[in-house]
């Protein structure tokens, strides 16, 4: 039994004696043939410090151990909803600020638009309240995980 995260979702994986996983040696191009139950094919993998990237038949999975991931990932999700913080989901540029500091907003209302690689992405208020902007200017570059604003409940 093992708990892992695949693309940010948690899975409990049970080893099944009825379905043994067979993995053959790496082929010349880096492909690894495997067989398990009715599934078979070649996978490719690349390790990083945080986990391992796996490519299998067009699907890409980023697999992490659960302990570490729980501390980072789901933790911020919960915090974000509770504290009303708005965190940048991607690196990019503040394209447009749609509200003023101190303005009252409703949950779901657009707060600002981020732009990365020609695409615009609107970020919404996570609850009702007053917006506190983190000293932002249009055109400013932000990184993933940066706190952009918080919604202070009335």
């Amino acid at each position, binding site marked *: 039994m093992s708990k892992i995260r695949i693309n940010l979702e948690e*899975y409990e994986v049970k080893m099944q004696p009825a379905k043994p996983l067979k993995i053959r040696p790496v082929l010349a191009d*880096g492909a690894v043939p495997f067989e398990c139950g009715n599934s078979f094919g070649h996978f490719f993998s690349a390790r990083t410090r945080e986990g391992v990237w*796996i*490519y299998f038949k067009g*699907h890409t*999975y980023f697999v992490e151990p659960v302990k570490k991931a729980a501390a980072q990932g789901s933790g911020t999700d919960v915090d974000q909803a509770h504290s009303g913080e708005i965190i940048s*989901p991607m690196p990019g540029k503040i394209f447009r600020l*749609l509200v003023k500091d101190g303005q009252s907003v409703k949950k779901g209302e657009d707060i600002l638009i981020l732009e990365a*690689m020609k695409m615009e992405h609107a970020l919404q208020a996570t609850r009702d309240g007053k917006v506190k902007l983190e000293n932002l200017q249009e055109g400013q570059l932000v990184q993933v995980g940066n706190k952009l604003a918080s919604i202070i409940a009335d």
Partner: protein
Amino acid sequence: MPKISSVLIANRGEICIRIAKTLKRLGIKVYGLESALDVGAAHLLHVDVAITLTGDTVQKSYLDIDQIVGLCKKHGIDAVHPGYGFLSENEDFAQALADAGIIFIGPGAEAIRRMGSKAEAKEIMIAAKVPTLPGYQGVEQSDEVLQAEAAKIGFPLLIKASAGGGGKGMRIVSVLDQFAGALKAARSEAMKSFGDDRVILEKYLVNPRHIEFQIFGDSKGNVIHLGERECSIQRRHQKIIEESPSPFIDDNLRTLMGKAAVDCGKALNYLNAGTVEFIVSEDRQFYFLEVNTRLQVEHPITEMVTGLDLVEWQIRVAQGEQLPLKQNQVSSRGHAIECRLYAEDPENSFLPSIGKLLYYMEPTAPFLRIDSGVNEHSEIGIYFDPMIAKVIVSGFDRAEAISRMIWALENYPVLGVKTNAAFLLAVLRHEAFRAGATQTHFIQDHLKNWKDTPGEEVQLLCAQILNNKAISAESARTSGQAGMMHHNSLSSMRPTPWNNLSGFRIGASS
């Protein structure tokens, strides 16, 4: 017009590489641009001369007209190919080049300007008797005038913010009674988003398709079309799957639309490659949308079915030659599909996925063409479009092309970033797609909350690779190569003589 012997490609990535391949085949000297934003970029491996751009933003490098024109003059370059995006539809750029006596490989400043203005484009098309979408885009914005115009257009109709984009200030109105309320809402949203509450009205098509025709014109006044491309499968208003021929239109409609596209080109006295975009209703009415005055991203599917090299044609007409073929000499064979492979996360609103490619290998097959702009170790950054490659296949018919595309995407390992490959596969396998129900709402209708959930076996595999070092030990035992799974990149174990070189330098006395 003089023969072109040197060309600067004022672009980057896959389109630069694709253009460079044709130019080299034609014996033309290829100049490319090297930017500080793009150090070591893959496209530089495909040009004869890399010219360095100054400037640390896109605006001050790839979009800097003065700098690029200055470099052309300095290097004595004959012509510029703008690719798509960047300066490809910038009339000032085309004009600045013309003023400097450099050939712009495209339709010229005048056509770019006329097609850049939606209102003017529409007027030209109405005059040329090309069907346009009924609508109102007048200056008069009173409730009474808009209501009267709405009644004239008929319902359903769309209220759009004049300054708009991205769906803001947009309202679909299905009956006249709802018009006043919807107008009020659209105006206030437009004001809030764009600081401008002017609106335009347009007939709204339910379940439309986006079908475009490739046109080509020469300096002798000839204009022909090279068939259509069906581009309805879109996410975030960007195409992700294109095909030719369209599964929707029949020969009769194709002839009508092809003629309209050519009329459109003739009305503009069009030179070089262009694309006439149409929106097509369920009852097979088609309406002019716009003309893209450049080589399109999806041009390879036209090349696949016609066997022509569109970049070669661009060069030939740019140096004053006549179009190589007449309309009745153009033929199309089989079916071609293109999928755009993006570094993005389809499970998270298709947001770009940034990172370094840890492993990258393109599949090969006789029916397959891959136009890519990356290689292993490429960095997918925030400055440019996150497209990794265009995967293009041909087949005897549509079903064969689809199954070949599925094979290609299933055998195209990319590691280090999320990609949309699994999502593309979900579209290709969807029965509605297979049945040819390619409408622009396809993804919204059929794959809105798509999730890539790994099956039990794959979960097991993931856990095994993550946790169990015995995998590599086991493979090491049988193959005699220890610890191979622990490399950051598998490429380091591909058997190539270059891996064994240490401290090797060409020309060094060692």
